[in-house]
Each structure stands twice: as structure tokens, then as C-alpha cells.
């Protein structure tokens, strides 16, 4: 940097973005050196241990130390030097305050809102599946990925959207890159959302199928939410905490009740096949989308968020108490050979695709543009909310990875390999995993199922049951009391609850998107209060994800095995669109020399997603390439043969159809993203030549607010706030 501060400056030099970046005090040099050393030791232990017992806490410490350093130094560099957040500028929340969507919100409260919105099942499921490659690749990517890609994306998108009054990702792509890119981005966002909803629903179906306990407790969440909704509407309006407290108690009773139901005559009636669960979910999704939100969606959301945060905190604490030992290898042979049964493909690119949300999630760009930026009080707070929020999400992913790596690895593979591979019974599954060199016996597999009181754990794919087994083991170790079955169903309930919340909220967002888009040509359809429009749009969205879900559930090759890569690639492609947008914006703002901050993660993400897409489309290995798979089954079918795991001619047709469809979707996503990128390259070339281009950034308006920027207010910030409140009179809020 060429900035110089002359000696006759009055007062300390203050770059925009708050108090000057003073030299570090001796104390903070010591503290940060200690953090760096602790992190380095933890990483060294993880990297060098082979064939000995390694405590899972090393993963936890390696991650936490890395996060702390990244937040303190890299996030601060991005906020202050690259983006130049400016607290003298009023945010949209301050300028356009309307108490509805534009609303100045305390940074800590907004952090909670933002985290609740971004955290979902992805960071829990992805790392569990990626554990088939060992604990090390997953750990490294979750930590490195979040620091240099995921959190950077969330932070920069949040910042640029905030500077544009909270415009959505699609809108910004259209205005800043071009109409072609904008249309491609719009279609991509909608299509990707459908896939994501279908895969999320698939995880729930796999977790609940043949489990009367799970079905009973999850089904009860609906009447519980309806009760809360009516309570808040009619009995005691606005008493959210009271209603949520009652709801959580009822929820715990529903889990306990499930244990009794499982032993009772009702068990048979509640043992549902996957097909019936699909139907139930589709009907539920449709009803939830047309009902008023106060009745079902809002109360469910409170419940699911409380459960989510509660379980995450509990998991972190119990890891510290139980101090489990890693059972997985650092790197398995599947990482090198790409022949793993959980998902096919080698470490590069598929570990990055599979982990997805815990390290980098394109879906976050939809939340970081739109809702959150309209509520930020001070520009510099985007570091805490955007970057900090994503670090938290990454921490969740790390906890999930640990949970998958501390269970018996023979059990892990028996649970996560498709039924076509394990044969579905304990004996055949034991033989199958013994083939990989595990000494897990049929008795062990049966005992593991009995411990959590499930009929079977074989081929319970999707990640949720594995995570629940891991969590139940860690919780029982930590708290004692032989409650493993309760904890298992508690964990299933918590996952299913917030996946369903994501599914119904996503259906609704998809419905709005569809109504908005079609509203451009047919005005009446865009009117959100027009009933027939709501019903038609809801039916279309539910119908779309419902059919993909049905295809996944009935896929002879295993839905998760086939669809999860599509989900991961879709999510990472969305991230590519978001990173392209922010890179274009940096260059348009004349910050070419800092474009690497988003440019490097973008380049990496494009390499990963395009390689993965290429392999999924063009690979001639049938386990990897969708079209190669379709060809293999088509040739066999035409020759009148049956190929395992297909059991009849109908299933052969199904494999051919599904693989072709997946291949087409895969190609479509990749092409849409390439359209956005090519359009962006044109704009970048123009901007580089001109040394910058005008953007749609709102002009600066001076701010009248004084608020701290980090999680904890510094002494200086407290003084400034007190001074300000003396001058203008207190706003009344607690500090």
C-alpha cells in the first residue's frame, strides 16, 4: 500500500472502517502467537499420526485455532482494506427503516438470525458422507475452505448487497453483469433449489423409513406447531418464548412417547415405506406452502431453531467431556482409488463436492443478499455476521465429521452403502464390510441397531442416521445413563425437524420466485394474495421436488449415492455464480489488485465443479459418469440381461431413465454457470481497460448511529456510544 500518514495529522490516522489499525500490543502478539502455536501442534498431530489412537479433540482444536486467526487477521483485512467498510455511512437499515424488512438490528441478534438461516442439514450430512475418505481430507477442506472461500463469499456478498439496499443475488447479477447472465442465474437458482429440496427431503425419508419411533415423533411436530401457532394468534399473542418453551417440552415428550409406540400395537401402522413417506412429505409441503405462515411455518421455525442451536451447543460440550477417539483412518484407500461405496469418485474433486455447505455454500449467497443486509446496523459489522456466521457453520460441520469418525467404521460403511451393495441384512452387510478389512461381525451390526432400538441400521444412507448414531454414542459417553436409544431419536428428530423447516420455507421461497417470474408476463399471477396463483405455483414447486424425490427413493442404485453428487455440485455451482458476481464488483469498483481475494476461491471452485461435472457427464466409468451408466444398463437391457442391483426389467429401465435425467440436469447446471462466467469475463475485460466501471451502489449518506462493530464492544466503542447517547438521548435498548 502506498498510503502515507504525515506527522502533522491531527489525531490518529483513521482509515474508513473504524479505529486505526494500530500496532499490536505486546500482549496481543503473545496471545496470537500462542493461538498459532496451539493450532500448529494440533494440525501436526493430525497430519502425522498413523495407526495410533488419536483423540478427536485435536480436530476441534486445530479448527478453532485456525478460525480465530482467520477471523482476527484475514477477515479484518478483507473488511477494512479490500471492502473498506465505512461506519460513517448509513446502512439501508438506517436509511430505509420501516420496521418490517428494513430494521436496524443489534449485531448479536442479527448474528443469531443469520446463523439460524444459513445453518441446515448440509454441513451435518456432507462431512458424514465424506468420512469414507478418512478424517483428514474432510477436516482440511472444512477449515481451509471456510477461511478462504465460504466465509469470504458470505462476507463479500453481504457487503455488496448491503451497499445496494439488500438486492438479491439474481438482481445484482442482472444489473452488474448483464441480462444474459441474469437470466441464466435466475434459472440456475430455481433449478438448484428444487434439487436441494429434493435431496433434503430424501435424507428425511431415509431416516424415517421403517422407523415407527421416528415417524411418530416427527408427525407429532405438526400438531405441536399448529398448537403453538394458534396459541400465538389467539390465546397469548406475541408470547413467543412462552409458546416455544411449551413446544420444546411437548417435543421431548413426543420423542419419549415414540419409544412406547414402537413397543405397542401402533408400531405396524407407523412403519411406513419410503414411497408412503414421499407422498406424506409432498402433501405436507404443499399444505405448508398455502397455509398462512403464522399457523405452521413460523412456530415450526422457532422450534427447529431452538433445537438446532441447543443440539450444537450440547454436542460441542459433550465432545469436550467424552473426548472420543477417532476410529477412522486419516486417509482411506477410497480417497486414492475413488471406488468408495458411499459415493463414487476420487478425493479430487468429490470430497469438495460432498462436503459442500460446511466449507462453501452457494445457498448462503441467497441469504446474505436479501434478508440479512437489510438489517445490518453498521457496515463494519458484516465481518462478524458474514464471516463469523460462516465460521460457526464450519464448526458444525467439524462436529459432524467427528461424530462420523468416532463410530465403528465397519458400522459406518454398513450404514452408508446402498442396499444393492450390503444386501440389506446383517450377515451380508458384515461380509461386505469385512471385504474392506473391518472385523465388524453380524452380531456387532445387530447389537448396534438394538442399542438405538431400530429394526436395522443396514443401508440407512443419507448421513442422518449415521450422525444420530455418532451423536448418541458421544452423548451417552458424556452424560451416562444408558439413554442411547433416546439420544438417537433425539438426534433424528432434530435433523428431520430442521430439514423439514428448510423444505417448507424453501417451497415457499420457490413459490414466490415462480410467481414473481411468471408475473412479468402474466400480471395476475404475480399477485401474491391471489389464491389460485398460490395454489398453482405451490403445486408446481412441490411437484418438481416431489418427482425428483420419488426418483431418488426408488432408484435401484441408491438415491443418496446417485443424487448427493448432483446436490453438492449444484450448491458449489451456485457459489461460483456468487463468487463471480463479487469478483466482477471488486474490479468494477477499481480494486483489481484485491480481486484475488474472491478470484482465487472462484477459480478453485470452478476447477472443482467443472471437473466434477465433466466426470459426471463424460466419464466412461459407469459408477461415475451418468451417461456411461445409462449406456451400460441400456446395452444389458437390450441384450435381455439383468445387471445387479436391478432385480427386474422395470428396474433396468429405471436406472437408464434416472441416469440420463441426472446427466441432463448436471450438464444444464454447468452450462448455465458457464454462461454467467463468460458474460462476467466480458464485463471484467471492459472494467479492467477502463480502470473501473460505474455500479449500482447507493450513494453514501451520513450515519447518525453509533454501534460497536465486533461481538464484544471495546472500551473505546462503549465510550463513543455513551457520548452519543448523552447527545441525542437514549434509544432505550440494552447495550
Amino acid at each position, binding site marked *: 500500500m502506498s498510503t502515507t500518514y504525515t506527522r502533522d495529522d491531527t489525531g490518529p490516522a483513521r482509515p474508513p472502517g473504524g479505529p486505526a489499525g494500530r500496532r499490536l500490543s505486546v500482549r496481543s502478539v503473545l496471545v496470537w502467537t500462542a493461538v498459532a502455536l496451539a493450532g500448529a501442534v494440533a494440525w501436526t498431530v493430525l497430519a502425522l499420526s498413523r495407526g495410533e489412537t488419536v483423540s478427536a479433540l485435536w480436530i476441534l482444536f486445530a479448527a478453532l485455532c485456525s478460525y480465530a486467526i482467520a477471523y482476527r487477521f484475514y477477515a479484518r483485512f478483507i473488511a477494512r482494506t479490500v471492502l473498506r467498510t465505512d461506519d460513517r455511512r448509513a446502512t439501508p437499515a438506517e436509511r430505509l427503516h420501516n*420496521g*418490517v*424488512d428494513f430494521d436496524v438490528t*443489534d449485531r*448479536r*441478534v442479527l448474528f*443469531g*438470525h443469520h446463523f439460524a*438461516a*444459513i*445453518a*441446515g*442439514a*448440509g454441513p451435518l450430512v456432507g462431512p458424514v458422507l465424506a468420512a469414507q475418505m478418512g478424517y483428514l481430507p474432510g477436516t482440511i477442506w472444512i477449515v481451509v475452505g471456510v477461511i478462504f472461500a465460504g466465509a469470504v463469499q458470505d462476507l463479500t456478498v453481504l457487503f455488496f448487497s448491503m451497499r445496494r439496499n439488500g438486492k438479491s443475488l439474481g438482481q445484482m447479477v442482472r444489473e452488474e453483469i448483464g441480462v444474459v447472465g441474469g437470466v441464466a442465474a435466475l434459472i440456475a437458482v430455481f433449478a438448484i433449489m428444487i434439487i*436441494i429440496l429434493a*435431496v*433434503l427431503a430424501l435424507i428425511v425419508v431415509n431416516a424415517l423409513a421403517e422407523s415407527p419411533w421416528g415417524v411418530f415423533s416427527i408427525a407429532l411436530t405438526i400438531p405441536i406447531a399448529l398448537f403453538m401457532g394458534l396459541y*400465538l*394468534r389467539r390465546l397469548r*399473542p*406475541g*408470547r*413467543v*418464548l412462552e409458546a*416455544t418453551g411449551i413446544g420444546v417440552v411437548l417435543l421431548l415428550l413426543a420423542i419419549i412417547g415414540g419409544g412406547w409406540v414402537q413397543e405397542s400395537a401402533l408400531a405396524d401402522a407407523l412403519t411406513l415405506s419410503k414411497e408412503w413417506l414421499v407422498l406424506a412429505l409432498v402433501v405436507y409441503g404443499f399444505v405448508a406452502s398455502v397455509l*398462512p*405462515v*403464522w399457523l405452521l411455518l*413460523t412456530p415450526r*421455525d*422457532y422450534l427447529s431453531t431452538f433445537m438446532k442451536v441447543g443440539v450444537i451447543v450440547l454436542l460441542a460440550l459433550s465432545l469436550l467431556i467424552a473426548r472420543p477417539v477417532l476410529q477412522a483412518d486419516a486417509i482411506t484407500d477410497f480417497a486414492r482409488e475413488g471406488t468408495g461405496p458411499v459415493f463414487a469418485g476420487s478425493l479430487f474433486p468429490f470430497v469438495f463436492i460432498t462436503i459442500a*455447505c460446511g466449507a462453501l*455454500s452457494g*445457498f*448462503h449467497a*441467497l*441469504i446474505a443478499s*436479501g*434478508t440479512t443486509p437489510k438489517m445490518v446496523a453498521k457496515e463494519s459489522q458484516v465481518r462478524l455476521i458474514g464471516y463469523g456466521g460462516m465460521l460457526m457453520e464450519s464448526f458444525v460441520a467439524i462436529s459432524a465429521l467427528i461424530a462420523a469418525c468416532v463410530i465403528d467404521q465397519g458400522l459406518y460403511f454398513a450404514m452408508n452403502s446402498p442396499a444393492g451393495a450390503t444386501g440389506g441384512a446383517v450377515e451380508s452387510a458384515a461380509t461386505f464390510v469385512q471385504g474392506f478389512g473391518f472385523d465388524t461381525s453380524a452380531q456387532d451390526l445387530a447389537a448396534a441397531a438394538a442399542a438405538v432400538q431400530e429394526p436395522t441400521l443396514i443401508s440407512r444412507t443419507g448421513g442422518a442416521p449415521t450422525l444420530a448414531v455418532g451423536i448418541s454414542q458421544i452423548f451417552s459417553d458424556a452424560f451416562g445413563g444408558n439413554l442411547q436409544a433416546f439420544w438417537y431419536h433425539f438426534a433424528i428428530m432434530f435433523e428431520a425437524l*430442521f430439514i423439514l*423447516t*428448510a423444505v417448507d*420455507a*424453501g417451497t*415457499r*421461497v420457490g413459490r*414466490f420466485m415462480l410467481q414473481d417470474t411468471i408475473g412479468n408476463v402474466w400480471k395476475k399471477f404475480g399477485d*401474491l394474495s391471489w389464491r389460485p396463483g398460490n395454489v398453482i405455483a405451490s403445486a408446481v414447486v412441490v411437484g418438481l421436488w416431489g418427482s425428483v424425490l420419488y426418483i431418488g427413493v426408488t432408484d435401484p442404485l441408491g438415491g443418496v449415492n446417485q443424487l448427493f453428487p448432483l*446436490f453438492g455440485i449444484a*450448491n458449489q455451482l451456485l457459489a461460483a455464480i456468487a463468487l463471480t458476481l463479487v469478483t466482477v464488483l471488486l474490479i468494477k469498483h477499481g480494486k483489481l489488485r484485491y480481486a484475488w481475494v474472491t478470484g482465487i476461491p472462484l477459480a478453485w471452485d470452478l476447477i472443482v465443479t467443472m471437473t466434477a461435472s465433466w466426470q459426471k457427464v463424460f466419464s466412461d466409468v459407469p459408477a461415475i459418469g451418468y451417461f456411461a451408466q445409462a449406456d451400460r444398463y441400456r446395452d444389458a437391457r437390450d441384450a435381455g440381461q439383468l445387471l445387479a442391483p436391478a432385480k427386474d426389467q422395470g428396474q433396468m429401465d429405471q436406472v437408464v431413465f434416472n441416469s440420463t435425467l441426472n446427466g441432463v440436469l448436471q450438464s444444464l447446471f454447468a452450462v448455465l454457470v458457464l454462461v454467467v462466467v463468460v458474460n462476467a469475463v466480458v464485463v471484467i475485460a471492459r472494467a479492467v481497460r477502463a480502470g473501473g466501471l460505474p455500479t449500482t451502489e447507493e450513494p453514501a449518506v451520513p450515519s447518525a448511529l453509533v454501534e460497536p462493530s465486533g461481538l464484544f464492544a471495546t472500551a473505546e466503542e462503549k465510550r463513543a456510544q455513551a457520548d452519543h447517547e448523552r447527545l441525542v438521548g437514549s434509544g*432505550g435498548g*440494552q447495550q
Partner: protein
Amino acid sequence: MTAADVRSAVVRAGRGVRWYLREWSGEARWDDHLRECAAHGHAPLTRREFERRRSDAIERNPVSRCC
């Protein structure tokens, strides 16, 4: 540290948690409304009417939940 110190720390922490949960859940918006009405000399809405308007606003602004 005396027992009184501990007690006051616990009370402060409890108050902080309650403040956070009320802010986060939106319960505190009612207090904001009352305060604003008092400051401007308007008559406040009934709680029922206020919450109804708030939930109608949420109806039009869907919250996204991520994967």
C-alpha cells in the same frame, strides 16, 4: 468473590439471556412499539392487532432456510 458478587453476576447473565431471546424471537418488538407510541404521543395498538400486523408482514416476506 463474595456470594453477592456471584449472585449479581448470575442475575446479569440471566437478564442478558432473556434480553437476547426476546430480541431474537421478536417479542421485544412490542416494547419498541409502546416506547415509540409514548415518544410520539400516539395511542398504541392492542397487542393482538400489533402481532397480527407483524405476522401479516412475515407472510409477505418469506424467510429462507438454508440446506
